[in-house]
């Protein structure tokens, strides 16, 4: 049992993280100079469209990048320790116990030929070698309870679980070694809205009960608005806006953030003609010079094509934006 400490110390500080993928056509600049903090017991949302680099950031934090991926610069300070220079053996102590991840595609992440309970027991045993069989069982039952699954279902196979239950089981598995931080990569994206709402409520619940710190990655701004304390909006490998959820959604400053919020049809209010951001997200092999959003920006100026805007605090406290308008 861990006690909930609301000290608001950053448990994770990411500084100038730059991750590229080597391909036959050159380096894909998936994440460039990404910096953010996650305070203890807080949730940070990383939002953006596909290919903006948000998953790359998550994989970099755990150093589980696919082949060709490399952290080329930056620091990842977790619990006072920089993870970037750590060896694979040292990273193994951080994964699961320090930072745990729930992947996208809940439906396929469990092994179909093993019982769900056994798969979670395996995760526990790997991290605690001397744990007895009965103790493991107890722990699995507790984890099941924690995520709201009847413990007797531990003997079921994944196909006997519904989509929402599989998502819960994966969350239980991620919590097997009592991590301090949980990363959710598009949690609930493949699920229907009602089940998605159930899953997000569970995550909020766990954060409050266990004092978990969280990073939530999603293309859906509404999910982040409802679940996170802070938000970072990524576009083409960079953070373009970063701040407190309230301030950011009340007063979005970056033209991209504004466009993205408007692009979501709202369930409330009058019927309107939907708006989109013209153009396409860029090719990260050859990202646009200076501000990467300038080819699609409605307010583009000369300076945007020449000089890269820095992520700075302007009108509001704890709300940074990288745009020459300010």
């Amino acid at each position: 049992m861990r006690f909930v400490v609301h000290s608001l110390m950053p448990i994770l500080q990411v500084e100038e993280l730059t991750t590229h993928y080597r391909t036959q056509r050159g380096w894909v600049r998936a994440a460039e100079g990404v910096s953010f903090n996650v305070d203890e017991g807080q949730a940070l949302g990383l939002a953006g469209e596909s290919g903006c680099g948000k998953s790359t950031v998550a994989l970099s934090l755990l150093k589980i990048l696919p082949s060709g991926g490399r952290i080329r610069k930056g620091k990842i300070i977790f619990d006072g320790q920089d993870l970037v220079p750590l060896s694979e053996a040292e990273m193994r102590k951080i994964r699961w116990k320090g930072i745990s991840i729930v992947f996208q595609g809940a439906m396929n992440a469990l092994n179909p030929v093993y019982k769900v309970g056994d798969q979670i027991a395996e995760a526990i045993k790997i991290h605690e070698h001397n744990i007895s069989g009965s103790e493991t069982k107890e722990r699995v039952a507790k984890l099941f309870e924690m995520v709201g699954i009847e413990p007797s279902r531990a003997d079921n196979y994944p196909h006997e679980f519904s989509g929402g239950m599989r998502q819960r089981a994966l969350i239980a598995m991620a919590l097997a070694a009592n991590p301090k931080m949980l990363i959710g990569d598009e949690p609930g994206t493949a699920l229907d809205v009602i089940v998605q709402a159930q899953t997000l409520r569970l995550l909020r619940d766990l954060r409050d009960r266990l004092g978990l710190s969280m990073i939530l990655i999603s293309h859906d701004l509404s999910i982040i608005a409802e679940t996170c304390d802070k938000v970072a909006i990524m576009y083409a490998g960079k953070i373009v806006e970063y701040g407190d959820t309230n301030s950011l959604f009340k007063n979005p400053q970056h033209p991209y953030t504004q466009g993205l919020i408007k692009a979501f049809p709202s369930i409330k209010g009058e019927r309107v003609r939907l708006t989109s951001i013209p153009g396409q997200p860029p090719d990260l092999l050859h990202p646009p010079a200076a501000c990467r959003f300038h080819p699609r920006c409605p307010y583009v100026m000369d300076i945007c094509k020449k000089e890269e805007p820095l992520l700075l605090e302007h009108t509001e406290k704890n709300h940074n934006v990288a745009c020459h308008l300010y």
Partner: protein
Amino acid sequence: MESKPDSQNDTQSRDVVGDELLRIENLRKHYPLRKGFFETLLSKNEQTVKAVDGVSFSVGKGEIFALAGESGSGKTTLGKVLLRLVQPTSGSVHFQGRDITTLTDRELKPLRRLMQIVFQDPFESLNPRLIIKEIVAEPLRVQRIAKGEAEVEERVKKILSEVELFPPEEYLYRYPHELSGGQRQRVTVARAFILDPSFIVADEPVSMLDVSIRAEIINLMIDMVKKHSASIIFISHDIALAKHIADRIAVMYLGKFMELAPAQELVDQPLHPYSQALISAVPVPDPESKRTKDVISGEIPSPIDPPSGCRFHTRCPYAHERCVREEPQLVEASKGHYVACHLYT
């Protein structure tokens, strides 16, 4: 002959503004469950997946009709039955006055040019080995409509510029992999509209696309529908999206309509507890409106053996004894607003 379901259909068709294009009566599609040899010998009654289980409605000329619901609610199957890509188990689909469920393939072929579909995934619904010109021209060739190669190319160019793939010459000889997701979906829209159809089924046409480009594809489809005065059945799990683009929305659950009403009215004043749950579960990009409201528990049950009475009773916060026993009929609660729930009868 004044049986109850029939009179319902009459009232529903009256809600169609202008002329009626499609009239669907008591449509069912049950898929037999594959069983092993011994099971077939031992068990008497055959089990079926009741994907669509008794649906009646009408679609007007030029109407945008949305089918909303969770996965497994039967909305995609219904869309396919309407085009007779799938043969229904029972019921009828009257298209321009003819029941297409009884036509032979030969009789159906001339009607096919009037009924088109846009699929969800523009990465899989385009043949990767064909150039755009051939993909878009295929319906013309199948229906033998254009005379000569020059006319084919002329018509393909015209429709490509209509879907804003401009200039069309630049796209004719390209392959699907050279296009972005949004451009590919424009190609599928062009292919659907090249025969000037009067009825289109669009099955989640934007759910695979990036958020920032969804709106332009949606707007394009609406503009094309208006321009060609076609009707469209828009299948979507995204009821917020449906609210903004559809004239009417039908909420499906386990193969049945739970509620059918004008789009804004359905979303703003949902009557059925399921519609209410579905709408309140939609996330809102406003940090102050956290979904503190109760999220209903559980998930959609199996359509093999749907719950007795009202199918939603297992998850309904207002369920009472009558809901377990008796199946509610779709009745008109207010003008043009239909709901299948005992709370309103």
